[in-house]
C-alpha cells in the first residue's frame, strides 16, 4: 500500500523538469537551485558527463527523522510519504542532524523558521490517488527516469531491468535495503563507480538496520531499569540508615566518616 518512486539514473537527461514541477506544486520561491535548501525540495547533480543524480527525501520505510522528532511533527503516512506538521514543530533541528541522507532543511533567514523537505506531494496528489508532480513531469516532458507507483511493483520492475541488462546497472537497487528500505529508490549505471554517487547523496556506509532501532534499543530499557534502580537506591538508603541506628544502639558513635578525614589531613 506504500507509494514510492524509482529513479533510473540511466534514463535521466538532466533536463530538470522535475525540479521545476516541484517548485510549482509546492509553491516554493526562487529559481531552481543546485543544493537542497528551504526553496528546493529536489535538485539535480551532475555526477559526470551526462550522468545526473536527483536528490530528494527518500521517504524511508522507517524514517529516522520521524523517530527523533520530540513532538512527532514528522510522521510516515499509511500511503508512504513522510510529512511535516509546522504547527507541532518546535524548530529543534534534531531531524536535520539525524537524517542519514541530510534531507530536512531550515529557513535560517527567518525569525520563525520552518523545516522544509519533499513531502511526496502528499496533500495535493497522493491523497487524491495522483502521481507526484515531479514523476508526472518527468514521464511527460522529461527523460522518463522517475517512475511512480507501489513500492513492491517498482522493486519488481527494477530487478527485472537489472536482470535483463546486467551490463547496464550495478546489480542492486539503492534504497531496497539501506536503513531498512526507502520509498525513493535508484538504479545506478554500471559504467560509473559507486563512489562517485556516494559523495552526492547515495551513501555507501549505511547499515541495513533501520536507524530508529538503535535508539529504541536504548529507550525501551527504561521501564526495566527504573524499578531495579529505584529498589537498589531505596535499599541502600535503608541499609545505611539502619547501620547508624544499630551502631548507636551498641553505643558506637557513627564516626566512620571521620576516619577518612585522617587520610586527607
Amino acid at each position: 500500500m506504500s507509494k514510492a518512486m524509482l529513479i533510473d539514473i540511466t534514463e535521466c537527461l538532466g533536463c530538470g523538469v522535475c525540479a521545476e514541477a516541484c517548485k510549482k506544486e509546492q509553491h516554493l520561491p526562487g529559481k531552481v537551485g543546485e543544493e537542497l535548501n528551504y526553496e528546493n525540495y529536489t535538485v539535480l547533480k551532475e555526477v559526470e558527463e551526462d550522468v545526473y543524480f536527483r536528490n530528494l527525501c527518500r521517504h524511508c520505510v522507517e524514517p529516522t527523522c520521524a523517530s527523533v522528532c520530540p513532538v512527532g511533527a514528522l510522521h510516515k503516512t499509511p500511503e508512504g510519504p513522510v510529512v511535516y506538521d509546522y504547527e507541532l514543530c518546535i524548530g529543534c533541528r534534531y531531524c536535520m542532524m539525524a537524517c542519514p541522507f541530510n534531507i530536512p532543511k531550515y529557513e535560517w533567514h527567518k525569525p520563525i523558521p520552518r523545516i522544509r523537505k519533499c513531502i511526496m506531494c502528499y496533500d495535493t496528489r497522493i491523497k487524491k490517488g495522483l502521481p507526484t508532480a515531479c514523476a508526472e513531469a518527468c514521464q511527460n516532458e522529461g527523460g522518463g527516469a522517475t517512475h511512480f507507483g507501489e513500492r513492491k511493483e517498482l522493486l519488481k520492475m527494477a530487478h527485472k531491468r537489472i536482470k535483463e541488462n546486467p551490463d547496464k546497472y550495478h546489480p542492486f537497487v539503492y534504497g531496497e535495503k539501506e536503513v531498512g528500505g526507502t520509498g525513493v529508490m535508484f538504479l545506478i549505471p554500471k559504467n560509473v563507480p559507486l563512489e562517485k554517487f556516494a559523495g552526492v547523496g547515495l551513501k555507501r556506509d549505511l547499515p541495513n538496520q533501520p536507524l530508529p532501532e538503535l535508539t529504541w534499543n536504548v529507550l525501551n530499557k527504561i521501564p526495566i531499569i527504573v524499578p531495579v534502580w529505584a529498589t537498589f537506591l531505596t535499599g541502600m538508603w535503608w541499609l545505611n540508615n539502619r547501620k547508624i541506628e544499630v551502631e548507636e544502639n551498641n553505643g558506637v558513635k557513627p564516626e566512620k566518616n571521620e576516619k577518612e578525614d585522617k587520610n586527607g589531613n
Partner: protein
Amino acid sequence: MEIKGIKITFWKIVGAIILILGAIASFQRFFYGLGAATHLSDKFPWGLWVGFDVISGVGLAAGGFTITAIVYIFNLKKYHCIVKPTVLTAFMGYVFVGVALLWDLGKYFDIWHPLVYWNHHSPMFELAWCVSTYTLVLFLEFSSYTLDKFKWFKKPVNFLKGIYILLVILGVLISTLHQSSLGTIYVIVPEKLYPLWYSKLLPVYFFFTSIGAGLGMTIVESYFSWRALKHEIPTPILANLARGMVVIQLTYFVAYFEDLIVHNKLHYLFDGTFYSKMWWLEFIVWTLIPTIIVFNKKWIIKRVGVFVAGFSYILGFLLNRLNVSTTAMEYSAKAHYFPSWQEVAVSASFVVVMFIIFGLAVKYFDIFEEEKKNTN
C-alpha cells in the same frame, strides 16, 4: 584590600561587557533569525547552543543528584555542608538550560510542545520530560531549606522535609534517565559521528561521566565561593570528592577503551588527524591530569591541588561533550563549524547571569552551613 577592590571591579566590567554583547546578539537572533546570529547552516544544524548550553550544561548540573545521593542515600553525612550550594547550582543550571533553549529553538514559544505532543521514540522527548520534572524536584529540594525563613511557608516546608528522601531518590532516577539520554541522542547517527566518539554505549558513558562532572563542579564551585565569598569547605572533604571523581573517570575510561579495542578503532588514535589530536587533548585534560594529581600524595592534600584536578576534569568534560557534538559531527557534515561571536556572547551571558544569581542567593539564603550556625 585595594587589590581586591580593583579585581572585583575588573570582573564586573568584564561581566557587563559580556551582558551587553549578549543582549545585542539576542536582538539579532530573535529579530533576524538564527541564520543572522549564528554560524549554523543546513550542513551544520547544531552548534554551541546545543553542545555547550544543553549537552554540557545538563552534565555540569549533575552535582545535584550526585551529592544528594552521597549524603542521603549513602549516608555520608560529612558531605552535608555542600548539599545546599550544590543543589542551588544544579537548580540554576537546569533553569539555565531551559531558558537557553529558547535561543536555540526556532519556535521558542512552542517549547512546551514535548510535554503535550508525545513521541516516546525520541530521546529528545525523554530529555524534555526529565529536565522539566527534575527542575521541579530541585526546586522543591531547594525550597525545603530556604523558605522556612518565611512564616507562611512553615507547613509546606515541613512536609517537604518529611518527603525529602523521596525527592532525592526521584532525583537520582530522573537524572539517570536524562544524563544517559544526552548520549542516546547520538546513538542514531552511527555513520555521521567520528568513530573515536561513536559507541552504542554512549548513554552509559554519558551517565557515568556526569557523576564525575557533578563532583568536579562541586570542587570548582567551592573554589569560587572560597575566592569571592570567603566560604570555606574543608579541603579533605573536597579531596575525597576528587578521589571519587577520578575513580569514576578511570572506570569509564577502561570501559570506553575496551570498546575502542573491540571495534578495532585504535589506529584512529595515531593517524595524526585533527580528530586524533582532539582526542588526545581530551584524554590528557579529562583523564590524565586529574589522575596524576589525585594519586600524588603531596598534591592532593593541598587546596590548590584539589582545585586544579577539579578544573582540569571540568575542562576535559566540556571538551568531551563539545567533541561529541561538534568535532565528531564535522567529520560527516564535511563542513567546518566555529561559533559566531553572537553564539559565544549569548552562552557567556548565561554563565555571567548564573554567577550573579549565585552570589545573590548566597547573600539572601543560608546556603552555607557555617552561616546558619552563626545566626542561631
